[in-house]
């Protein structure tokens, strides 16, 4: 009976997901044919094989019954664990949020639940922009109603798309866009805080000077809210903003461009002003097909190092997974055989997210609702403690699909 009920729930979830991704609209298509000629970069796989060699076998006596063996689960001990960082603050905690969240705390590599259970589930924060931005069609169709209205966008993200958190990207301060003042963003933040009660990430524009001013202003204007300030970089003068973040009880996202030594260095600089419990790392996310291998390995190495005692890397990790859409295969209208892009695009974001989930990411900054839905389902599945049911597994061989 229980299994049946689960199936039913699944059906409902799935309907939701389908509704999200199947809203194909009439597309304006630029005619585009991918005709990349065969280009000559072969990265040789090397030689792994050892042909021509056989172990000298004793003449086998064929067993007549199974030779019982026990598999020894290869459980390892780790000398360290990942710091926990609390995001958002409720009224009793000194803020106004409906709930706070904790990320990090792992004692084991990502979802090695044969060693240790999941301590804090990874969370998803949805992107909201404070002005109109160019978005891929597959994304835009879900948010075009709320574009330019960050409060409404945040509400949609939380209520419809089930975001754990919201990132409000204050890109209007970018000198190349509106060059708005830091002060002018406070109203936007205020509005978003009224619209939703989840913890918030405060995103800057990428310009070191403007972002420094922004974080200073926001820290002071919203003391005790435990925002995550995104992000602190090596080329910023971090002393004052780090002090201000500490004083006003905010957490900090430390961004470095795919280099673990730089990540350690930035963290060391932050330790002068902040505690371990205040720092989340963004080690850079590259899209599937556009450097995801670097991002994956960088994060996997950081996490393993953190667990094995490298305290400068033992921080929760955040991923700007929305970068998946930088891959042209995510958004481009391609030949028919690769279509529809309304499925290919969000699957690109899902695949990027899941690959990094398995490297140890604790927090995902995402944009497509179907990708968010799938990632959250997978996180729930992996954290549930439930077991596989092998009884009908081998039926796949003869299943009439």
């Amino acid at each position, binding site marked *: 009976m229980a299994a049946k009920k689960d199936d039913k729930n699944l059906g409902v979830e*799935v309907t939701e997901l389908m509704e999200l991704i199947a809203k194909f609209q009439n597309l304006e298509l630029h005619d585009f044919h991918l005709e990349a000629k065969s280009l000559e970069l072969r990265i040789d796989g090397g030689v792994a094989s050892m042909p021509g060699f056989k172990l000298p076998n004793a003449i086998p006596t064929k067993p007549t019954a199974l030779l019982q063996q026990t598999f020894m689960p290869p459980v390892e001990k780790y000398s360290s664990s990942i710091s926990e960082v609390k995001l958002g603050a409720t009224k009793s905690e000194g803020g106004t949020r409906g709930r706070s969240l904790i990320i990090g705390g792992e004692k084991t590599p990502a979802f090695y639940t044969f060693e240790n259970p999941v301590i804090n589930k990874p969370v998803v924060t949805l992107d909201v922009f404070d002005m109109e931005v160019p978005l891929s069609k597959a994304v835009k169709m879900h948010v075009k109603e709320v574009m330019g209205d960050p409060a409404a966008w945040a509400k949609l993200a939380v209520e419809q798309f089930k975001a754990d958190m919201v990132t409000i990207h204050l890109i209007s301060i970018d000198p190349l866009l509106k060059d708005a003042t830091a002060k002018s963003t406070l109203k936007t933040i205020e509005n978003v805080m009224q619209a939703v009660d989840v913890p918030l990430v405060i995103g800057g524009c990428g310009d070191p000077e403007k972002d420094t001013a922004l974080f200073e202003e926001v820290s002071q204007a919203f003391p005790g809210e435990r925002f995550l300030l995104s992000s602190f970089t090596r080329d910023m003068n971090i002393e004052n903003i780090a002090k201000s973040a500490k004083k006003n009880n905010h957490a900090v996202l430390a961004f470095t*461009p795919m280099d673990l030594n730089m990540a350690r260095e930035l963290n060391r600089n932050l330790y002068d002003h902040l505690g371990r419990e205040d720092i989340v790392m963004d080690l850079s996310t590259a899209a599937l097909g556009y450097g995801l291998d670097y991002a*994956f390995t960088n994060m996997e190495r950081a996490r393993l190092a953190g667990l094995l005692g490298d305290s400068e890397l033992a921080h929760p990790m955040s991923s700007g997974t929305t970068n998946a859409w930088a891959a042209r295969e995510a958004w481009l209208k391609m030949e028919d055989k690769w279509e529809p892009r309304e499925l290919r695009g969000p699957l690109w974001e899902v695949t990027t997210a899941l690959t990094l989930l398995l490297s140890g990411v604790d927090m995902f900054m995402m944009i497509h609702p179907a990708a968010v839905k799938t990632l959250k389902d*997978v996180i729930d599945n*992996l954290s549930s*403690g439930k077991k596989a049911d*092998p009884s009908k597994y*081998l039926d796949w061989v003869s299943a009439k699909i």
Partner: protein
Amino acid sequence: MSQKAAKKELSPIDIYKLLPKTNCKECKQENCMAFATKVVAREVNISQCTPLQKPEHAKNSAILHDLLKPPVKEVIIGVGDKACKVGGKLVMYRHEFTYFNPTAIAVDVTDEMTEAEIVTRIKSTENFSYEYIGNTLKLDMIAVRSTSGDADKFKNCVKKVSETTNLPLILCALNASVLEAGIMVIPKARPLLYAATLTNWKDMAELALMYNCPIVASAPNDLNGLATLAKTLQVYGVQDIVLDPGTFFNDGLADTLNNFTMLRRAATKVGDELAGFPLLGLPLSIWANRGELADDLVRWREAYVAGMLITRFTDIIVLHSTEGWVQLPNVILRQNIYTDPRKPVAVAAGLKELGTPNENSPVFFTSNFALTYYTVAADLESSKTNAYLIIVDAEGSAIDSGVAGRKLTAEKVSDAIKATGIENKVKHRKIIIPGKASRISGEIEELSGWKVLVGPRDSSEIAKYLVDKWQP
């Protein structure tokens, strides 16, 4: 065990001291030390040492082969030039060395499909092709399933399949006599057999021996059972084994990942030989248990679980979906995960002439990150643009991350303009920069003295941009 533990730390000296030390250069290396260095880096095979094959070196040869034996056995499926190598992994994590033998991807057909359907599915698998940074991404195998349970039908189906394709096959039937009917059609083709289970293992082991085929040991969510099967098959005389610990969805996803992870760790870190075989993942099993899911939703789930399995150590996966949107993310993910992390993916900086540019042709720059460079160059070439492309040394980063991380700076662009001698090749002084580098446009103008035109954010729009905007 001690030898295994040492394997990770292999140095060229470990190899060198066991070589004949003749410095004969028959291996095409300068000397034995150089050869040993390449052997450790797995760039050449120990069998290329001719003197080592002589009887007097048999003992050292055996020790060397054992030292170099990968903790995950390499298994060959099929014969001839399409034969597929799976497994052969040296390490658990790619950063520890590199992964060999990319996850083989198979697509299924059944003995109850019409011939037309079988041919269509095989052709779409064979013709699958995607050009990606100079590589052609392909699919690898066909899995033939007996859904009828009828030996004759299976035989006819395998016959049709083998007449249609040279791709290696996975033959799937749990009844040994049905499976044998299929194998007999292609007795020398070394298909992978699916599967020996805790109940049918004896008959299946006989088939594997008789036809010299690799075989899957399947014990869903039962690693003791899987070890038992592997051990029994091995003692029976079967050498080439593939392990199927089961691919489960939803509530079973955690067990699935745990099983693959435990097996690979046991093989690579503990030296457990019974875990040291290639791993099989079956994302298509979701179709057998789909409930009322809509087709696209099943495909969606099949697709993302396939991706997780590629990331988590799986050496072969079987898919049912042939849709491009399902396959594309996974073949690209496979390419990414199996890229050698020891080699930076960068191309040489410098000047590239596309088509037949003249003194009025546009000048672009891009980064030396291979992915960026090949994408831009391919777009310019396919649109038959005559242009100069300056490749700037951005330390192998993409445009946006290069600008953000200060690896692609106005100084570097300005230096590249001077170093390439482009000033002598064109009369104008205009450079079209990537839209994603617009942040540094002012600085480039200042430093280089060239007028900067900010081009599109994606190179697929360059052709249109030139038509609209380009004036020498």
